[in-house]
């Protein structure tokens, strides 16, 4: 068993593509795996801990319209229209109604089967 790569690992997309949904639960950051149409295929436990959303509820739904409308804007969701995407940005998500500071990494490539929305919680102001 290989160890999890870091959030900013340049080869992270390749590693993610090789993981089963259960294996994604072991990632040290939040992972949302989506189809290219934006339907959630895997919503890992660490993501659930950040947002409070049950993985069973998220799977099968359109991520940016039904699960995370807070990221449905030009800054995040619209970026997935690009064929190649690897961008990190600071953002805010909500846990129930409380703001949570996070770093997002948006990943997609022509070779990847899925697209990914990764979340790393920021613990310092």
């Amino acid at each position, binding site marked *: 068993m290989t160890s999890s790569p870091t959030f900013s690992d340049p080869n992270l997309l390749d590693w993610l593509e090789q993981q089963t949904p259960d294996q994604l639960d072991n990632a040290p950051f939040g992972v949302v795996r989506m189809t290219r149409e934006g339907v959630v295929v895997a919503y890992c436990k660490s993501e659930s801990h950040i947002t409070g959303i049950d993985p069973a509820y998220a799977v099968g739904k359109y991520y940016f319209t039904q699960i*995370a*409308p*807070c*990221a*449905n*804007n*030009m*800054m995040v969701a619209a970026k997935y229209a690009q064929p190649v995407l690897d961008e990190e*940005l*600071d*953002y*805010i*998500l*909500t846990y*129930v*109604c*409380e*703001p949570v*500071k996070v770093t997002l990494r948006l990943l997609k490539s022509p070779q990847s089967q899925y697209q990914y929305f990764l979340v790393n919680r920021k613990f310092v102001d």
Partner: protein
Amino acid sequence: MTNPAQQAQQHLQRLLPLFHHSPLAMAEINAQGVISQLNPRAVQLMMPLAAHLGLPGHNLLDVLTGYLPSVGQAVADFGADSGLIIDHEPYTIRFAVSQSWFDRHFCLTIEKLSPDTLLVFFDDVTDFLIKADAMRHGL
């Protein structure tokens, strides 16, 4: 059989989807503008505005004042402990995302609940104005 505390909790649980799916952005901030609660629509609208100013987005008053200095002034000048500071005022904001410039029209309401609690309601009404304009020309 549920007790009154459980019933109140159930009411709150039922209230959450209303708050989460509201098409209106809602936020509770303190007197300095730091956000204590907000809904997804507020994050969706605020973050591109904050990013354009190079702000982290945890202070809504800083974001609004960055575009609309009169909003910060209205909050600062409001002397009463509670009351409506701004009531459904229209504003136009120009900002850039990924090197593209956007002019968006916003509607903003700010109510002071207590000396250290303000509610902010806002929405991007640009598409609504376009539809309303088309409706007027169609009549």
